[in-house]
């Protein structure tokens, strides 16, 4: 798209999509085979008991694991902090505009998270009630979305849109999809419903079918079953899904750069544009905000895993 060669862009995007589909399918097949092997918890398993390293073994293991974190995260964050400090000292920090970017990021992320989780709940419940090859295939297809690069989604949206606009100019499709948030939220959903589906699907997997059968015996079925029986049990997975989608949308760049409507700059877009214009000091603030936002699910999930042990 940058070299304005739409044919090449379509060819690359299609090839990428095909390659990604094959890889994800292989991964899903491998995962489904692993299910029985890891069905029991760590406390019960006789094979997967943690072995505590002590002395220099422990130090060496810690050091080897810490080096990538140090070089890939700690040092860059420190450099960003230093750049931000220099900007603060020279009074070049755009605080008011930063609040505007943050608000846009949170609103877009929040709206997408609600829609994505809603869709994921609906899809998961339908798959539970109608466990057919069609529903399983649909879930797998939706699940591929996360592996699709944002740029491919943009190509997949803009090229047919351009065609539709040329054959049916009165439709105004171009306007609806790029001048409003519709196109952008659509692109986010293509990518991130998969994230919500992963969390909600895992939550559903822990709800025994006997609960559904008992509820049906008491006259509760369909959507009432979802809202009265499943929903309370899915609170945590839904909360995790909302948070993960929110943060992922805040960090998303390629689709946001091209599809966002007027006056909708986000933290990711501004970090990119400031860095592209070689204003690294000013780029530090939105970049660090995204780092903090990205750490939230990591901290939350670490706590959850820690509690399970």
């Amino acid at each position: 798209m940058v070299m304005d060669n739409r044919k090449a862009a379509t060819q690359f995007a299609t090839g990428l999509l095909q390659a990604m589909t094959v890889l994800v399918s292989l991964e899903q097949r491998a995962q489904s085979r692993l299910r029985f092997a890891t069905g029991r918890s760590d406390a019960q398993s006789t094979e997967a008991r943690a072995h505590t390293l002590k002395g220099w073994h422990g130090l060496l293991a810690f050091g080897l694991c810490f080096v990538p974190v140090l070089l890939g995260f700690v040092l860059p964050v420190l450099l960003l902090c230093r750049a931000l400090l220099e900007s603060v000292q020279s009074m070049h920090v755009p605080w008011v505009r930063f609040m505007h970017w943050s608000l846009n990021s949170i609103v877009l992320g929040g709206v997408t998270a609600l829609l994505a989780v809603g869709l994921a709940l609906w899809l998961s419940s339908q798959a539970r009630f109608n466990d057919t090859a069609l529903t399983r295939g649909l879930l797998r297809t939706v699940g591929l979305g996360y592996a699709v690069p944002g740029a491919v989604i943009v190509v997949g949206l803009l090229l047919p849109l351009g065609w539709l606009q040329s054959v049916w100019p009165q439709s105004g499709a171009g306007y609806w999809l790029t001048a409003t948030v519709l196109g952008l939220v659509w692109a986010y959903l293509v990518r991130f419903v998969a994230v919500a589906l992963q969390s909600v699907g895992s939550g559903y997997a822990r709800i025994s079918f006997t609960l559904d059968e008992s509820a049906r015996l008491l006259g509760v079925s369909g959507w009432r079953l979802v809202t009265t029986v499943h929903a309370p049990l899915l609170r945590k997975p839904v909360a995790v899904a909302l948070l993960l989608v929110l943060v992922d949308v805040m960090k998303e760049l390629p689709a946001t750069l091209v599809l966002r409507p007027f006056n909708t700059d986000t933290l990711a877009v501004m970090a990119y544009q400031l860095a592209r214009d070689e204003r690294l000091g000013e780029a530090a603030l939105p970049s660090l905000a995204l780092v903090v936002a990205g750490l939230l699910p990591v901290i939350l999930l670490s706590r959850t895993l820690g509690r399970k042990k």
Partner: protein
Amino acid sequence: MRHWSWAIIWGLVSGSAMAQVGVLNLYSARHYPTDEALYSDFSKATGIKINRVDSDDAGILARLKSEGSASPADVILLVDAARLWKGEVDGLFMPVQSKILESAVPAQLRAKPADAGGSAWFGLSTRARVVVYDKLKVARQEVDTYEKLAEPQNKGRLCIRSGSHPYNLSLFGAMTEHLGPAKTELWLKGLVDNMARSPKGGDTDQIKAVASGECAVAVTNTYYLARLMRSSNPAEKAVAERVGVVFPNQSSWGTHINVAGGAVARYSKNTDNALKFLEYLVSPEAQNHFANGNNEWPVVPGLKLDNPALKAMTGGGFKSELIPISAVGMNQIKVQQMLDRVGFN
């Protein structure tokens, strides 16, 4: 569908882009915080609210193509001459007639007149592509033309950003026009042979590389050098002080300049406001802003420059090349193919 659903949908589309009195919808590749003053001054003076979306040149053109006649854009601002030409050729701009614009912008810095009259785009500011060098290791006359950068005396000295970056594509497109394709390809090979390191980083990184001693000669835009010279950060000022600057080819065809310009979008619904905005951008106030606020060269001739960095660079003006912008645009694909052949990443 419930009423609240329609309210939400309407809420999603309200505040954007139907034809409205007092509104201007801007697609801009200029994402400089200093331009905020430009937009707010225009809004204060005219009462016209500016809705803006920033992207890069290619993203803007791709978006315009996809939106077609439903595009809400009124004014397009781009920062690369070749992309301005591409937008014109692809029919994305509306040729407009304006005595103010035609008298302010020199003919070589605006689109050629369309058949039905008017010009598709107008240059608003320029940036020169210059050579910076280590004052202690390099003599000025060794690098005072673009051609000399490929000569043996500069072997192992050169730092330059990626050849495929629009600034370099435009420079190499201009060189193709001056030297012809065969000589330009040889020249590009010479540049590759003279590189001190593989192309990486932006223009500011090239200047810093010269100042740190990693290389002795670099190609950069005056915009980035001026920003370092005017920086409040002592370390950045020191970088600028360590390097000398030369405007190449002053004795021949002049220094290459890239043009940042504006156009009225082909399907603009607010053409009067769009024209008002473009005319405002060539006013002395706006041109002063480009020069003094954003370190660009104004297009309007005879404007008094009040930028100490730009003045220090030239000592009072420089000769810029006078080739048509269309030549730069038309040569881009040829240039990219040459870059691939000579291994210039």
